[in-house]
């Protein structure tokens, strides 16, 4: 069985690295994007099982990425979990309207909680045993 792929769109390199390691430990395949436009391009080509999307990113905000994902037939269906460190009402409302699996504040999540949530969303990982 093929492992699930998670796209992490995060401009902060420490958070990107920590999330990557935590998800790989659970047996997920991980694809990384450092800014909004990379995230959009990788979402189209990799068709990940879940996108962890930051909001405040260079070149294109997460909200704009989400808007373009939803406007494109090829990416409309991709599940997105917004992981931000700001909870501006406007962003939360907009993200909810565009369709997301959740809006979480990164600082309020432990890596364990993050891993649990990802697992709950995409189903049990297949390679956990040999990780």
């Amino acid at each position: 069985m093929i492992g699930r792929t998670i796209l992490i769109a995060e401009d902060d390199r420490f958070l990107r690295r920590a999330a990557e390691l935590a998800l790989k430990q659970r047996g997920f395949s991980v694809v990384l994007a450092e800014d909004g436009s990379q995230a959009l391009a990788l979402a189209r080509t990799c068709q990940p099982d879940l996108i962890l999307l930051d909001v405040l990113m260079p070149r294109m905000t997460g909200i704009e990425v989400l808007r373009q994902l939803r406007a494109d037939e090829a990416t409309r269906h991709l599940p997105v979990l917004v992981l931000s460190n700001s909870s501006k009402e406007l962003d939360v409302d907009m993200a909810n309207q565009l369709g997301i699996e959740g809006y979480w504040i990164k600082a309020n999540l432990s890596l364990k909680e993050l891993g649990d949530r990802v697992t709950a969303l995409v189903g049990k990982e297949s390679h956990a045993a040999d990780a």
Partner: protein
Amino acid sequence: MPSGIVLLIVVAVAAAWGARTVYRLRLNLSRTESELRTAETRYRTIVARSVQGFYEATREGQLLSVNESLAAMLGYDSPADLRDVPAERLHVDAERRTDLWRAIQERGFVSGFRSQLRRKDGRAIWVSEFARGVFDASGRCTQAEGFIEDITESVEAEQLKSDFVAFVTHQLRTPLAGIRWMVELAQSEQVSAEAASFLEDARVSAERLIALVNDLMEITQLEEGRLRSVAEHVDLVKLTADVIAEIAPCPASRQHSVVATGDASAIVFADPQLVRRAMANCLWNAVKYTPAGGTITVRTECDESSVRWSVRDTGIGIPLAAQRRVFEKFFRADNAQTVDTEGTGLGLYLARLIAERSGGSIACHSIENEGSTFTMVLPLARERKAVA
């Protein structure tokens, strides 16, 4: 006939006295009438000339009377010009208008209620409103009268401040999340027992700092009245039980006996998450500042119009001079400082903001070394519907 003369004199005196009384009464009556007229004219003048906008309106949205200020605030030529406009055209957000009438129906009044109104020229302004309901015999609010203040400028200034706070919060949270996650990764590695204890201390410190940033942000939003809140019917007895159950597993609370009593009809109209937070903060305070083996009593009592929710402990108490200040931002009493150095002085301030935001108040009563009682008073919901 001496007795006849006496009688005559008595009757004459009585008649004269009576006439004088009637005259006096008349005089008083006409004086009262003219005073009333003067008072009414004065009242009308005050309302008409008030810098605040004034209105009387029906629930269906018909304006019965408005003053000059309100007409000017909304860009209309005269009160008569404004009076013909249906209220739904004045409200930018129809839902907010529903919220307003619902709150008046439930609480009898609103204070500092914010909404946006549309001017004649189409421009939206922010207003703050104080309004009181007029109720019919069946208890339905049919009309409201209220004062309205244009707060557009201060709302715009707040928006700038709030954007700034959001930015700072983001800038603080990102490296904090980095520390938290990296420490967690390190904790999943094999390290010496000593290093493991260092990592655990680092994790606890990072989480404390994150909680502090969250509290500060929440306080800023509450101070500005911007925190998103959803008012509904809340059963305070049920909520109390939830809060007690939440803190029960923690070691500090297991050292005390926690007793709760309550009136089943204690229903308020407020945001359950916020009220829960205020209750939890008061309860934590009692737990933290009571030496092991203490008793904490939570009471929920109703009178005709309000609910008194109180937490009484057998703790260290608050020195008299500090009692007035415990609800201030960042304030900590000297004796609190010696028991627990980690407190931020934000918990009770947050509880006060929430109580006030919910149309109520909070107070404390304490005797040093005997204990403290914190009492939150919230308006009782007018209709005590069954709460799911």
